[in-house]
């Protein structure tokens, strides 16, 4: 099969005017302006023609328009004959596509056979056998026109262009900090524990954490008091916390003293114990 350069799409979107001017296809240098009246398509042109149509419905619509057939009075016989001819040729070319045309040929043949039945056997009120085909053709034609209309809508990068400015040099996107789950945190610590001797036989208990937290709180409190330097020992306790709270605070103070982070001073006997950061 010789390769043929496709010139234009004959079917539809440009309308009849264009179809009459532009050749349907070029076959060995010869332009095919339109199909012969008997609908015969040279075998070499078939592939090109098939590529030009969106399927059997599209081709059928083209034939109907081209031959000025009345869609309501389809001459089923010649169309069927032509279709059968196509299908024979298509077997060697594009089987997948041929299948769809074959279905159409079968539909046409079926309509034809029903039309050829003696009239008296056609019951009153029976649907015209062409009706379903007409319905499909119309449905397809509506969509074909809709596709053309959509293509006419203003398209980005074709008809309209998005207007954009750039950021000033000092622009920085806002950063969203990564999420961390408690699981990740605990797993990370377990990793450390496994590697480290420091935690061995160390059971991190809630009481210990309370003490650690209180140590932080006391340090902060003492830092805020830099003006006077000293904070009275008693002021570090919150009586409302009850006995447990007082014990936690006391343990925290002992721990801080042990780690030499604070110092306690008693200026006079029986006087207030003063605490300050070391």
């Amino acid at each position: 099969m010789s390769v043929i350069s496709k010139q234009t799409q004959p079917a539809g979107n440009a309308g009849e005017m264009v179809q009459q001017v532009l050749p349907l296809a070029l076959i060995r240098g010869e332009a095919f302006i339109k199909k012969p009246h008997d609908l015969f398509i040279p075998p070499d042109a078939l592939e090109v023609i098939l590529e030009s149509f969106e399927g059997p419905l599209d081709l059928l619509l083209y034939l109907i328009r081209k031959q000025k057939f009345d869609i309501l009075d389809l001459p089923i016989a010649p169309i069927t004959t032509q279709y059968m001819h196509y299908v024979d040729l298509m077997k060697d070319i594009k089987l997948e596509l041929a299948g769809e045309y074959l279905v159409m040929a079968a539909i046409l043949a079926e309509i034809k056979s029903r039309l050829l039945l003696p009239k008296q056997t056609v019951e009153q009120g029976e649907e015209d056998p062409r009706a379903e085909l007409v319905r499909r053709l119309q449905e397809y034609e509506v969509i074909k026109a809709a596709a053309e209309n959509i293509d006419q809508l203003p398209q980005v990068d074709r008809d309209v262009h998005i207007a954009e400015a750039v950021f000033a040099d000092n622009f920085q996107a806002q950063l969203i900090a990564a999420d961390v789950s408690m699981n990740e945190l605990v797993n990370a610590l377990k990793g450390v524990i496994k590697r480290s001797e420091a935690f061995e036989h160390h059971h991190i208990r809630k009481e210990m954490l309370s003490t650690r937290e209180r140590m932080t709180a006391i340090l902060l409190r003492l830092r805020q008091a830099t003006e006077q330097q000293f904070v009275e020992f008693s002021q570090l306790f919150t009586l409302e916390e009850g006995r447990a709270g007082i014990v936690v605070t006391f343990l925290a103070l002992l721990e801080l003293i042990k780690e030499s982070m604070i110092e306690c001073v008693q200026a006079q006997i029986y006087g207030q114990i003063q605490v300050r950061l070391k």
Partner: protein
Amino acid sequence: MKTIDDLALKKLIEAALFIADKPLTVATLKEHLLVDYKVSSARIKLAITTLIADYQDRGVELVKVASGYRFQTHQAISADLGHLYKERTPKYSRALLETLALIAYKQPITRGEIEEIRGVAVSSYIMKTLTERNWVKIVGHKEVPGRPSMYATTKEFLDYFSLNSLAELPELMPISELSLIDNLTPIKETET
């Protein structure tokens, strides 16, 4: 929450619309751009209305599409602006446009239903292109054997074709199916 005067608000929205990589809604402007400010949606809308008027007779215009507001050039000068681009603008095949039209007008629709109306198989390449362009998406599955995917169009599709909603799609060519069938002319089969 900080306060912002009308002029500063308008300028901030103007800048945001020019740097955004997609159209912005009043809600997005309020919740993101203006998160630190005490500004009502009504004031944002008013600022946008003023901006639309400001750009009435300029080289670009502020328009509303399905997913929000954006600045764009006028259609009238697209040919001139085309000189700035080396690449040709994409041209979509009839097969793609017909498939897109069917999804747009008959959504939700399955691939099988598209094939039935077009009378031809829909290539996977077309569905891939439409999906990758974010013009169509799968919105569910039809409860028939095989549970085929049902396709619908997206806001990006509407944006691309400068539409605000599906209602703005061109009207379909009217067909009066019933009357046509009723009026089928008597059979005049010519012998071949």
